[in-house]
């Protein structure tokens, strides 16, 4: 399963009980986000600082992947 269309088709083919479980998952995801949404620093993200650290981590992961 690899596209939204396939996911939707599969959803429609699910037994009612499984559709209910999926609906519950969607509800849980939203409810848990609402509790998390107050976390974090105020304001906008410092994009260049974030990108700089992210690039460093990616480079290290890539190098580690090459070595292994």
């Amino acid at each position, binding site marked *: 399963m*690899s*596209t*939204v*269309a396939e*996911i*939707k088709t599969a*959803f429609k083919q699910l037994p009612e009980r499984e559709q209910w479980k999926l609906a519950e998952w*969607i509800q*849980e*995801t*939203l409810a*848990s*986000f*609402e509790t*998390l*949404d*107050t*976390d*974090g*620093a*105020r*304001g*906008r*993200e*410092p*994009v260049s*600082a*974030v*990108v700089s*650290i*992210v*690039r*460093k*981590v*990616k*480079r290290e*992961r*890539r190098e580690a992947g090459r070595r292994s």
Partner: protein
Amino acid sequence: MKPVAVLDSSVVVAGIGWRGGEAREVLRLLALRRFVSARTSWLTAEWAETVERVAHEEKRWRNGNWRGWLDWLSYASVPFREIPIRVTVRRDPKDDPVVMSAVATRTQFMVAYDPDLLDLEKPYGIAGVTPRKFLSIVRQSRSTV
């Protein structure tokens, strides 16, 4: 049809760490199921590693609950298998795994702040877009379910 996207670590870190920016808004739309977030095991591990590093290295970081956020994001994203391909990225080869994840999941969008990813424009037909552009795309799509 809902958009399908792979979230680059730069967006994940920004969305978890800061609540007033566009990256947080992307996560908010994910919670509302306005798009499908796809992930592979490599990408999930990269999200975790980068968030942890930024939490420790960036003095402006204020989210002590970042592990809870990563759990939420993994739970909210649809897991896909990796595909065994080697992708060459013109300017910045370090981002291969992100492109690979997007290819593996047949994603339409890679959402990123990293200019090296954005400059690729459409590798393998996948559009590299900023959070701002992606928000605009998702808000224009009226799909439900």
